């Protein structure tokens, strides 16, 4: 089945799929430093990824009540793919004074 015609068709399919994907899906970076999420407020779209870069020597989390729970080991990062639209408050489970908010548009 590896005829040139088939390969061309496959290439078209792949390119077509790539073009159909949300072109503007992006990674949004949030810095975690001295027990603060910066920026604290995020505007995003479904399909975007949030990456928390934890600069503290402390273990943190980004935890949405009743939802995602991203562990952020000391001086490491954690990521979350946004799969549904909505307005989400999140906190650090270990340090609940740390607060952030994500608004996810469809």
């Amino acid at each position, binding site marked *: 089945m590896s005829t040139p015609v088939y390969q061309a068709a496959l290439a078209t399919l792949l390119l077509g799929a790539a073009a159909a994907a949300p072109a503007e899906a992006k990674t949004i970076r949030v810095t975690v430093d001295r027990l603060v999420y910066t920026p604290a407020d995020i505007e995003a779209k479904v399909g975007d990824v949030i990456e928390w870069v934890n600069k503290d*020597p402390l273990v943190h989390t980004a935890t949405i009540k009743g939802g995602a729970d991203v562990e952020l080991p000391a001086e490491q990062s954690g990521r979350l793919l946004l799969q549904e639209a909505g307005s989400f408050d999140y906190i650090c489970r270990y340090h609940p004074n740390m607060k952030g908010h994500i608004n996810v548009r469809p």
Partner: protein
Amino acid sequence: MTIRMTAAAAATALLFAAHGALAADKPTDPQIAHIAYTAGLLDIEAAKQAIATSKNKAVVEFAEGMVRDHEAVNKQALDLAKKLNVTPEDNDTSKALSQAAEEKRQELAKLSGAAFDKAYVENEVAYHRQVNGALETLLIPSAQNGELKSLLETGLKLFRGHQQHAEHVATELK
């Protein structure tokens, strides 16, 4: 109880003693580093006692948080001391804190169950309040080195959260 209270009172008095009119009374950076490190270490030891003794989920989770955070901060403190070529210097405040903590540890060792949980958490509230007060009014204002001051400030923010957490657990236990 009188002896325990006296030791705790002495520790508090020493923490605040240098807050007098004489600038010479202020602790030096090597002393501040020692006091901060000791305060963290004592809280880690208390937390380990609680983890080994308590069967209460909220208490054990709180204690695990104390070990996790204070170990991380103390590692930072040691790394900074090394970087600045500062040798933490033992002093009367550190000694008084250690003595008061040892007396509390022995007192708690005689307790179990709900009585232990209550006594441990109430002491955590008091201990964090005491140390946070000392950080705010004495240790941070006295610190000369900017990086040390900054570490203490981040510590204070963290430890205020610990105090709130302890207060919250104490309320739940009532």
